[in-house]
């Protein structure tokens, strides 16, 4: 599982907004062009990003193993045709190129995940999206991060209790609805307590945020992001 790791690389020091802009630029350029030349250029750029963020390649590929398997399998599905000649190589190659660019996009976003702490992402969201929608998104995302492990533990408890009572030998519909009802009632009880706690602490639309500033090293990254977005329209 891939997550943030503290480090002192160039990518770690960048403003989260320029990293987000770069990912959008990279994705736009990759989605617009799947020619061999574009793919070679994007592969080089992706390699630079991974090296700059010191992303461990083997662990990342392992974390994405299912996605990699699907992306490798899809060109085969595309190549198979009903009726002679049964295998359409050209169709498969077109699809393989398309799959490969998705793989590159996933790797670049792995570099972001590894190099950016949650509170930076939250501050970036809240400063980019103005007003109440930005507040809802920023606070909401922070709450999702906070409660994700708690609710995972809740679900684990529910499943262990079901297994202890031989609940895992029942039919799939009954198992799914039992887990969902218990999971949802527990979650909503927690939500109602959380709402009370938020109100007790004067939950407001205008709290104070940590400062974010663009530094000199953000300039080339932002420029490159703009160039990539432009390249998508060429």
């Amino acid at each position: 599982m891939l997550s943030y790791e503290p480090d002192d690389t160039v990518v770690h020091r960048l403003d989260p907004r320029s990293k987000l802009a770069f990912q959008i630029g990279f994705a736009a350029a990759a989605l617009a062009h799947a020619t061999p030349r574009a793919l070679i250029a994007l592969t080089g750029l992706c390699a630079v990003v991974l090296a700059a963020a010191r992303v461990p390649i083997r662990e990342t590929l392992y974390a994405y193993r299912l996605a990699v398997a699907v992306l490798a399998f899809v060109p085969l599905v595309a190549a198979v045709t009903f009726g002679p000649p049964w295998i359409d190589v050209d169709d498969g190659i077109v699809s393989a190129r398309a799959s490969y660019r998705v793989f590159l996009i996933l790797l670049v976003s792995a570099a972001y995940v590894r190099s950016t702490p949650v509170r930076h992402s939250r501050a970036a969201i809240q400063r980019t999206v103005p007003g109440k929608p930005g507040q809802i998104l920023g606070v909401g995302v922070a709450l999702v991060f906070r409660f994700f492990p708690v609710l995972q533990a809740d679900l684990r408890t529910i499943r262990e209790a079901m297994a202890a009572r031989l609940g895992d030998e029942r039919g799939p519909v009954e198992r799914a609805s039992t887990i969902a009802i218990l999971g949802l009632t527990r979650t909503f009880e927690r939500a109602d307590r959380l709402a009370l706690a938020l109100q007790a602490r004067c939950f407001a639309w205008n709290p104070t945020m940590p400062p974010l500033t663009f530094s000199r090293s953000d300039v080339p990254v932002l420029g490159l992001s703009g160039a990539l977005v432009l390249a998508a329209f060429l």
Partner: protein
Amino acid sequence: MDTHRESVEVVDDAVVRSFARAALLAALIGAAAPVSIPLPFSPVPITLQVLFVFLAGLVLGPVWGPISILLYITAGAAGLPIFAEMRGGIGVLVGHTGGYLWGYLIAAGLIGLLVHRGTDLRDPAEEPLPVVVVALVAGTIVIYGLGAGYMAWLLELDAWEAFLAGVAPFIPGELLKMAAAIAIVKSGRIAPIQS
């Protein structure tokens, strides 16, 4: 020393409660990503994520249901490993499974609109069964239409290939999830926030 003065704009009671539910449901959708139930007659197991997307529309309604899914998508884009296969990052949103995620957003809103028919929430346990069934079927069509459609465009597949890779394996599981969602709302154990 300068004193910074600003008045505090407190969030309304109903909004805080709906917001807390939406945020925690988003976390629950993420926590359900690794939970899978094997099916005896299909190689693809049931995952509970889509079931919670149905419930987001059914219980939270046409406004807070999509907000919940939006929080789920944003938290995943910010790097929390809550998408299918425990992945996270913006790349997943434009990757081969990205269409399904955007489908969740529209499906939750559509199910909410069809069942509640407005922003005042009704109790889905008291809605007639056909309404709930139509809403769930429409939501599922949106999720798989967008999911397989985007996959076909992105990976240069034709419609039939996209159907084989992105829809057909999941049909039995989806039918069971609809049955489970109906059983849950009809049990009457989960009441929406009525203001």
